[in-house]
């Protein structure tokens, strides 16, 4: 059914919204990629089966909704029962019957499935869970609440209200002014003011213009764009249509990674439904404005997140960046004026137009307005998708929202901005998150990955990891990035393998400066950030690797040996670091529980049950699986070089 005017839209919206208010119970089953990986598809099936068996259906006002990511992926599969917002965590198919009986047929709760932690206790309502309580959700407002494959559900939750206002009551200039008032800056990383970009495109000469959505979320450790595309595709479509109206474009592309199959299918469905409703296509809402969208699937190249490479890729070419001395707003896709914005940027545009720029600008810091979505991952208790006002400190995000470090281990650093960003050390954790502060700290906002690192994360190895990633992902067009990253990687491979040489740090610095200043695109120019930031804050770890052949975190395999403590005394080196519960380290001698034997991938641990075990040093590959698995903290690590020295002493 096509909606022909703003008035008809409002009537339709009221109808679908009222129908939802009248529902008795709605079960929201999270089917984001995280929960699917935990088996939520089977949970969804179990609900369908159980409700049918109990004779509960839509006629009786009971609905089951397959939603996008709820965010608290760590506790998935997640199920929410509305009204009331009862959140059930780690739901298995066998739990479904009880949920149906108590929570749906009656107004009771299944206490054992509620979110529980030491600080907050058991939380009945989603809003009470600390993970959600400290968030302010604008981009993520509807994710997990609506069925992304049902446009009417999206409309009932407020989708396209901004579009109605823009095409029905505003001029393109007024739309740009409103976005300018909001202070919105690009959520893709660099933070360029969105309104300025749009204005430049609008005034650039040319007959054909494009708006493009960058959904090539390639940063390892970031998935907020994926969740947005999977969970609320209509917010993106609405934002892009408003943007197209503002700049005078009639064609748009959403560029999505093909590694996100669920996002591809959700967006494809959403675009089709928006066309059917007349929210895409010709004469949108009777305004005379025409706009349509196409999906372009990326081929798997991180560099295509760079705007000029992304546009070449949409053109069907290899994703090689070109100099941006002439901006994309003048000469972009197919050499036409183009506005390219990140998924999250497009997602908030509809809200800004609907609620006004000033509403958005009330949140955040003087230069960074609104909220920012992050994927909070790594060694943190509650991994997942979060959105907080700009200016929130990293500490609040990690400790309040994330519930602190996993297993209560000490926090070492938070990596932000992916391969283009850097590591912010624990000492700077009170840093408020905004574009300028993060850059000053040697990192960047990037596309929104926050990776929590504990004392078991080696910072030299982290730098090596990003370098290896970027060396593989460099397009190879320009000399410094292609040849320089390869050479840097060789130096780092040497350091983590115990072949570090004096002068390595100076060599790294010289090369890094050449790559930073000399590279063609932002991939190369920012590739050195992980190195420079770890050098800046964790220089001691570099020295330990190079001078003493020791990895203080005990994760560089070539440098680290493990042994099982039999006598209860931690022994000689600083590498002892028991498993922690809360802030207290548990350290006891081996009780022969066999857990490490099962964990060892190479069968290097031997010992009878209930008798102390030993590690065969010849077979041990130094992976640390035993250390992480041990429940009593009976395993310690120390530099291999010490063992070699001790063996030599023994031989004398």
């Amino acid at each position: 059914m096509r909606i022909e005017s703003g008035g008809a839209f409002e009537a339709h919206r009221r109808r679908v919204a009222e129908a939802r208010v009248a529902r008795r119970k709605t079960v929201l089953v999270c089917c984001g990629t995280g929960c699917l990986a935990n088996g939520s598809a089977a949970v969804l099936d179990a609900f369908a089966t159980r409700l049918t068996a109990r004779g509960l259906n839509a006629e009786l006002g009971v609905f089951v909704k397959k939603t996008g990511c709820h965010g608290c992926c760590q506790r998935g599969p997640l199920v929410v029962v509305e009204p009331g917002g009862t959140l059930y965590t780690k739901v298995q198919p066998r739990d479904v019957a009880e949920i149906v009986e108590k929570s749906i047929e009656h107004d009771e709760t299944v206490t054992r499935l509620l979110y529980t932690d030491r600080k907050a206790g058991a939380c009945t309502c989603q809003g009470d869970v600390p993970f959600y309580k400290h968030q302010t959700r604008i981009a993520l407002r509807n994710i997990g609440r609506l069925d992304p494959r049902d446009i009417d559900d999206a409309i009932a939750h407020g989708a396209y209200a901004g579009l109605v206002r823009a095409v029905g009551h505003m001029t393109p200039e007024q739309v740009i002014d409103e976005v300018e008032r909001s202070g919105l800056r690009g959520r893709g990383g660099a933070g360029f003011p969105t309104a300025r970009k749009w204005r430049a495109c609008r005034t650039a000469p040319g007959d054909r213009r494009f708006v493009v959505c960058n959904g090539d979320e390639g940063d390892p450790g970031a998935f907020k764009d994926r969740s947005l595309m999977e969970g609320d595709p209509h917010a993106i479509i609405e934002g892009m249509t408003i943007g197209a109206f503002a700049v005078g474009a009639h064609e748009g592309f959403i560029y999505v990674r093909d590694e996100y199959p669920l996002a591809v299918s959700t967006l494809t469905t959403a675009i089709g439904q928006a066309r059917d409703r007349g929210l895409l296509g010709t004469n949108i809402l009777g305004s005379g404005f025409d706009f349509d969208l196409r999906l372009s699937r990326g081929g798997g190249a991180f560099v295509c997140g760079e705007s000029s490479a992304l546009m070449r890729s949409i053109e069907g070419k290899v994703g090689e960046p070109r100099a941006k001395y002439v901006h994309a707003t003048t000469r972009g896709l197919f050499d036409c004026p183009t506005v390219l914005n990140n998924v999250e940027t497009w997602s908030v545009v509809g809200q800004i137009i609907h609620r006004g720029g000033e509403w958005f600008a009330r949140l955040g810091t003087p230069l960074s307005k609104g909220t920012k979505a992050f994927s909070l991952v790594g060694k943190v208790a509650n991994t997942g998708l979060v959105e907080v006002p700009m200016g929130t400190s990293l500490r609040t995000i990690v400790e309040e929202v994330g519930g602190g470090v996993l297993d209560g281990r000490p926090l070492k650093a938070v990596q932000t901005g992916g391969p283009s960003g850097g590591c912010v050390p624990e000492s700077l954790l009170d840093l408020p998150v905004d574009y300028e502060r993060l850059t000053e700290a040697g990192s960047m906002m990037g596309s929104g990955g926050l990776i929590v690192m504990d004392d078991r994360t080696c910072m030299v190895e982290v730098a090596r990891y990003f370098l290896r990633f970027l060396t593989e992902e460099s397009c190879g067009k320009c000399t410094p990035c292609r040849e320089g990253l390869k050479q840097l990687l060789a130096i780092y491979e040497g350091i983590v393998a115990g072949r570090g040489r004096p002068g390595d740090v100076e060599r790294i610095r010289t090369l890094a400066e050449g790559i930073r200043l000399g590279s063609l695109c932002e991939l190369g120019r920012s590739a050195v950030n992980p190195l420079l930031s770890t050098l800046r804050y964790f220089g001691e770890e570099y020295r330990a690797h190079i001078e003493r052949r020791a990895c203080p975190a005990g994760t560089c395999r070539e440098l680290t040996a493990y042994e099982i403590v039999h006598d209860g005394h931690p022994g000689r080196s600083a590498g002892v670091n028991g498993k922690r519960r809360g802030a207290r380290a548990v350290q006891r001698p081996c009780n022969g529980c066999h857990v490490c034997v099962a964990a060892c991938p190479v069968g290097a641990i031997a010992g009878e049950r209930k008798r102390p075990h030993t590690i065969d040093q010849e077979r041990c590959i130094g992976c640390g699986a035993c250390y992480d698995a041990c429940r009593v903290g009976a395993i310690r690590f120390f530099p291999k070089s010490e063992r070699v020295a001790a063996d030599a002493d023994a031989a004398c």
Partner: protein
Amino acid sequence: MTLACPELTRLEPILARYPAREESLIQVLQDVQRAYRYLPCHVLEQVAARLHVPLARVFSVATFYKAFALTPQGETTIQVCTGTACHIRGAERLIDELRDRLGAGPGETTADRRFTIRTVNCVGACAMAPVLIVGDRYRGNAKPAAIGDYLSEGGGGHAH
């Protein structure tokens, strides 16, 4: 190419989905990769001719993007996510275990052509790290010790 090749029949419906222009190239190759599990040489020649793109440029694109393979892949692809979260939560151990069990490392196909192992740059399921994908089935919090089960349970039947 006038040689009648039965293999090319699968290409027709793919080409029919897109306009015969260069901008369709990557989309067509994605679908070819899915249909054939690699990009056969003669199919690429046909794609070049039909989209009016020089063959050298088709080859260039086919070798630039990571999603494409020029050699036949195994029946099931095992993807080990090596995103940052998976990396610091032990993706390397999964790779070791796979190498041990299957005798093939990243980028390789087992001798019996049953499995191809690939590393992928972050599939965005970081909360479940480390993640292993067998076929199209995601395995969150994957454990090296459980790899045997993941492989025998296979990758089918997972609703998206």
